[in-house]
C-alpha cells in the first residue's frame, strides 16, 4: 500500500482548475449530498425511523445521480425495469432519471469522508502538475473525458448491474495516467505501509505502477470500482500520449522549470 503525500515538482502557475474541482467535490459532499453520507449510521433505537429515512434518502440520491451500468446500456432507468438490468438487488432505482446525465454527476459524488479525502489527496498531488503541463482547458477535458471513459470501463465489466457507482476516482485515475506519461521520473513523497510505514520520496513511475497493479487484486467484497480506476488510468495515459503527438501541445514543452529563488 502506497499513499502519496506530495511531489517535488514545482508548477509555473496556480492550479486553478484542480482547486475548483476539489471545491466542487467538497461542497457537493458537505452541502448537497444527503446528510447520511457524512454521518456514521446512528444506532440510537429511539430515532430508528428517522435514521431509516435518512439512509433511504441517501440510497435514493445515489440511485438518481450515480452511474448505473445497466441503465447506461439500456438508456432506461432501473425503475422502468429494462431487460438489461438483471442484477437489481441494490434497490428499485429512481423514477424519471436522466440516465446519461448521471455519467457526469456521478463523478462529483462520494460515499463517505474517507472516500472524499483520499480522492482529493490524489487529485491535489497529481493534478497540479498535469494542469500545468496541459493548460487549463485540456486538463479539464482529460479529467471529464477520463472520468466518463472510466465509468464505461466499469460498465463493460458489470453490464447487468443495477447499482450505482459514484466517485471522482475514475477521473483522477485519468489524471494519474497523464502524470505517468508526462513526469515518470518525478519523485513523490509517499507513505509505504508495508515497508514499516516509512515516508520517503519514490519515483512517480513506481508509485503509479503500484497503484495500477494493486487495483487488480481488489476483491468483490471491498466495494472498490477497480475497473474504473484501471480504465481511467489507461484512458488518461492514452490521452496524454495523443496530446504529446499534437504539435501545438508539444511546442509548449512540458517540463516545469524549478523556480529558483533569487538568493541561490
Amino acid at each position, binding site marked *: 500500500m502506497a499513499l502519496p503525500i506530495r511531489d517535488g515538482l514545482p508548477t509555473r502557475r496556480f492550479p486553478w482548475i484542480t482547486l475548483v474541482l476539489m471545491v466542487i467535490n467538497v461542497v457537493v459532499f458537505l452541502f448537497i449530498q444527503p446528510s447520511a453520507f457524512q454521518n456514521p449510521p446512528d444506532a440510537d433505537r429511539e430515532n430508528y425511523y428517522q435514521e431509516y429515512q435518512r439512509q433511504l434518502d441517501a440510497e435514493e440520491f445515489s440511485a438518481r445521480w450515480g452511474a448505473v451500468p445497466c441503465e447506461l446500456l439500456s438508456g432506461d432507468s432501473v425503475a422502468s425495469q429494462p431487460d438489461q438490468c438483471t442484477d437489481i438487488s441494490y434497490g428499485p432505482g429512481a423514477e424519471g432519471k436522466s440516465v446519461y446525465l448521471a455519467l457526469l454527476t456521478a463523478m462529483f459524488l462520494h460515499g463517505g*469522508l474517507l472516500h472524499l479525502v483520499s480522492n482529493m489527496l490524489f487529485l491535489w498531488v497529481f493534478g497540479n502538475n498535469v494542469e500545468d503541463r496541459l493548460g487549463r482547458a485540456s486538463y479539464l477535458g482529460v479529467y471529464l473525458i477520463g472520468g466518463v471513459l472510466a465509468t464505461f470501463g466499469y460498465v463493460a465489466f458489470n453490464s447487468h448491474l443495477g447499482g450505482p457507482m459514484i466517485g471522482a476516482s475514475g477521473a483522477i485515475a485519468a489524471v494519474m495516467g497523464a502524470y505517468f506519461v508526462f513526469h515518470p521520473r518525478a519523485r513523490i*513523497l509517499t507513505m509505504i505501509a508495508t515497508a514499516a510505514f516509512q515516508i520517503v520520496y519514490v519515483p512517480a513511475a513506481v508509485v503509479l505502477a503500484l497503484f495500477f497493479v494493486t487495483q487488480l487484486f481488489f476483491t468483490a467484497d471491498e466495494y472498490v470500482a477497480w475497473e474504473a480506476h484501471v480504465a481511467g488510468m489507461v484512458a488518461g495515459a492514452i490521452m496524454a500520449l495523443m496530446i504529446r503527438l499534437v504539435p501545438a501541445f508539444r511546442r509548449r514543452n512540458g517540463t516545469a522549470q524549478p523556480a529558483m529563488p533569487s538568493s541561490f
Partner: protein
Amino acid sequence: MPIVVLVVFALVLFGDGNRPLAGIAIAWFVVLVYETLPVVVWGATPGKLAVGLRVLALDDVGGIPADQAIKRAAATAALAVIPIVGWAVWLSSTLTDPLGRGVADRAGRTMVVPKGFAAVASRDLPGYADGARPPRVVALGRVGDLDVRARARLRRLNDAPLLVAAVGLLALAASLPYPTSAILLGSSAVWVVVFVIDETLRVHRRGATPGHVAAGLVIRDRRTGGLPSTGRSFARALVLGFSLYVPLLGWLFLIPTLLLIRFHSRGAGLHDMVGGTVVVADPALDPEAQRQQAMQMRIGQVT
C-alpha cells in the same frame, strides 16, 4: 475573541445538526475570511493590531499580497477548526521556530513582526537558525542539523534502484491473502534487513547515503576521520534501522536520537554513538556552498 463570536453566529445561521462536517467547513470558511480580509486591508487581524503586531510578506515592501494572505489564512483556519491536534500543531510550530514562524507563516511565506518593521528578505531567512542557534563545530567540521538530516532521510531511495524495487515489491505484499497484521509485520521485517545491508554498504564505502549527498553531508569515523569500518557501519545501520522502522519499540530509540541530534554537542544520535560516527559538512565542498545546499534541503527545495 471576535472570531469565536463570528464562528458561533455563522454556525447558528447556516449550520445543520445533521451535517457535522459541513459545520466544520463553515467554521473554516469564517476563520479564513477573518484572517484574510483584515490582513490584506490593514496588515493584521484586529487582535494583532491591538497588541502592536503586523503580518509581513517576505520580500515584499508594503501590503501583503492576497494570495499569500489566503494561503496563510487557510492554514490558520485548518488548524483552528481541528480541536486539540490542530491547536497543538499551531502552538508548537509557532513556539519552536526560532523566529516564531509557525505552519501558517511558512505556508504563506509570511512573518509576524512588531509594528515598525518595513520588510523582511527571504534570503536572510533560510539561514536564520544560524543566528538563533550557533552552528556546532567539531574537529571534522560543522555538524549536520536535525531538520536537514531528517529531510535528507526522505531522499533515502534516490539513486538506490534496488531499494526502490524492494519498496515496490513490499507495497505489493499488501495484496497477498494473509492477515493485515502479518503482512505489515513480515514486510517491515524484510525491509529492515534490506535497509541494514544497503545502509552498511553505502556508509562503509562512500560515507554517505544519497540524502546526505544532496544535503552536502558526510558520515565519518569520529576517531580516525576516515570512512567508518564495516563493523561500525553495520552497528550504526542496525540501530538506525531499529529506531526508524520498528514501531513502538523503535520509538524508544528514535525519540532520544532526535533529541540528541538536536541538542548534543556532536549532534550524535544513538546510532552515531554506537557506530562511533559523526555527521558533518562534506569537507570537499566550499563551506558557503555546503551551507546553502543544506539550507535548500532545510526549506524543501531539493528532491
